[in-house]
């Protein structure tokens, strides 16, 4: 393999790990609430700003600030669910879509009003640390982000398998009425699911701040990538989200290496449309197909 391609594969897999965590949160929310959450990227953006301000204001390292932002965004997510989404639980499907879209517009532009559109970067001392494998350069911060993201996604997977709350979440995503019949507090579990999904994406945002700019619209591209990943992996499928994340990261990065300009995005959209059309249940099967 030539150096260029090897580099593309390494960068793609590292970025894909982060996509995996972003998509895990989205797929969890979809599984339980049956909502395609357009505000997921906006929550990620807020998570990135939280890390940024903790670094600028208090000098807290972004990896440490995760300990603060994760619980904070869990509560924020629960709040959003209780306040905005739960009251519209029985609204038409497209209205729920618009609801999260409205939320995304609101949050993104709130950030724009508060902090303006400038690109901000965190200048951490280890920003340039890197090592070489074969011909490929591996940045430590990207490796930590990808590794951390995959670990958290796996931890989430175990949490859903082993704990009572996790089992209740899975029960609800499989069979709502059944879950109600066995006495699961459905509204509470929905809020918890939205909270966990939001915490996941906020942490993913925090993990990339050492090497990614922060701006009000930074979440948009991640949101669309996460849609692609979730559809690819099967809506509501966790392992699918992780594997799908790696595939999309690879596709994007190989596209960038082989195609001119920003045509790499085209590769991702083509995959997206093909999967939606021919395999809407995802490569690995999901909670619901067409």
């Amino acid at each position, binding site marked *: 393999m030539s150096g260029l391609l090897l580099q593309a594969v390494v960068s793609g897999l590292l970025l894909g790990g982060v996509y995996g965590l972003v998509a895990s949160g989205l797929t969890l929310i979809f599984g339980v609430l049956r909502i395609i959450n357009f505000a997921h990227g906006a929550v990620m953006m807020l998570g990135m700003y939280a890390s940024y301000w903790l670094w600028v204001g208090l000098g807290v390292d972004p990896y440490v600030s995760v300990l603060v932002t994760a619980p904070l965004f869990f509560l924020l997510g629960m709040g959003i669910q209780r306040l905005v989404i739960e009251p519209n639980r029985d609204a038409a499907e497209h209205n729920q879509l618009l609801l999260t879209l*409205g939320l995304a517009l609101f949050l993104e532009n709130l950030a724009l009003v508060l902090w303006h559109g400038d690109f901000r970067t965190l200048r951490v001392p280890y920003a340039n640390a890197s090592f070489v494998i074969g011909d490929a350069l591996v940045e430590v911060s990207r490796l930590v982000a990808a590794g951390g993201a995959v670990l958290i996604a796996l931890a989430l997977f175990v949490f859903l398998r082993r704990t009572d709350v996790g089992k209740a979440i899975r029960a609800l995503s499989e069979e709502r009425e059944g879950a109600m019949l066995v006495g699961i507090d459905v509204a509470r579990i929905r809020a918890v699911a939205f909270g966990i999904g939001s915490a996941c994406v906020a942490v993913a945002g925090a993990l990339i701040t050492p090497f990614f700019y922060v701006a009000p619209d930074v979440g948009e591209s991640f949101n669309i990538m996460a849609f692609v990943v979730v559809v690819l992996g099967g809506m509501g499928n966790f392992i699918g989200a992780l594997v799908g994340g790696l595939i999309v990261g690879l596709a994007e990065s190989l596209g960038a290496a082989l195609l001119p300009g920003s045509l790499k995005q085209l590769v991702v959209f083509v995959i*997206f449309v093909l999967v939606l059309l021919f395999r809407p249940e995802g490569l690995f099967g999901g909670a619901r197909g067409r």
Partner: protein
Amino acid sequence: MAARVLGALAVIALLVAPPLLPKYPLEILISVLFFAYLGLAWNILGGYAGQFSFGHAAFFGIGAYTSTLLLLRGGVTPWLGMLAGGVLAAGFGLFEGYLSFRYGLRGPYFSLVTLAFAEMLRVVSVNAKAVGASIGLVIPTGIAAPAMFVFAGKLSYYYVILAMTAAALVITRALARSRLGYALIAVRENEDAAEAAGVNALGVKLAAMALSSFLTAFGGTFYAQYFAYIDPTITFGPAISIQGLLPAIVGGAGTVLGPLLGSFVLTPISELTRAALRGRAGADIMLYGLILILVISFLPQGLMGLRRAARRASGR
């Protein structure tokens, strides 16, 4: 009866008052009608057929780019270019619709596919030097030439968009009372039942797609001629898709007057917020988001739903 008189008065006011208006209110009125027009075009597919497109920017951009490229490269008048754009957009709409409907995509899946198609066109046009790439295209408007869709003052553009909006209203009204309109509503309410009753769901959805994309492309050409500048983000970006569907949602999707009413409420709020909070970019869109959340939560049928509820309450 009262509604008729009110309607007639509104039509007369829209025809007669604008020459008396100062420049800024006239500009707002043009914006109101422009977004009402886009809302009306979207409403045919999103409202009547119930197929929630999140990617009408694709058709808008095709309209804007077709007429502009024909003008710049071939000297073709945008009046003809507009028609060509409409036909191309309808063709693309049929392609997109056939793929989606043929493979049974419904609800949010359809929304995502339309979003993806619009984004693909955006990415391609950002990268294609032949269509100006990300720098965009400037439409020459130095010399007024009505035959080339270039006017000296804003007033003429106002009457153009007024005529377009009126035409879209007439088309929507005719559609709502036609066999096709009833078939679309049947498909929207319950596709399987409609098919069982003999409605060709694929056919009527494609018809709605073609009409809706054709009309949306006209909006793109109007935009290009009025603002004299287009680029991939403006014409193919998600923002125009959203701004085009919001008037319909706020006013009432699947009603004739809904998009018009929605735009008359929504657009001035947004324009005035932007003017009042100059230097605070984003405040107007933030308000849009908030309004969207409130409308979905408290007026899921839009403003027209409010009217319907009031009628029911007064026992008519």
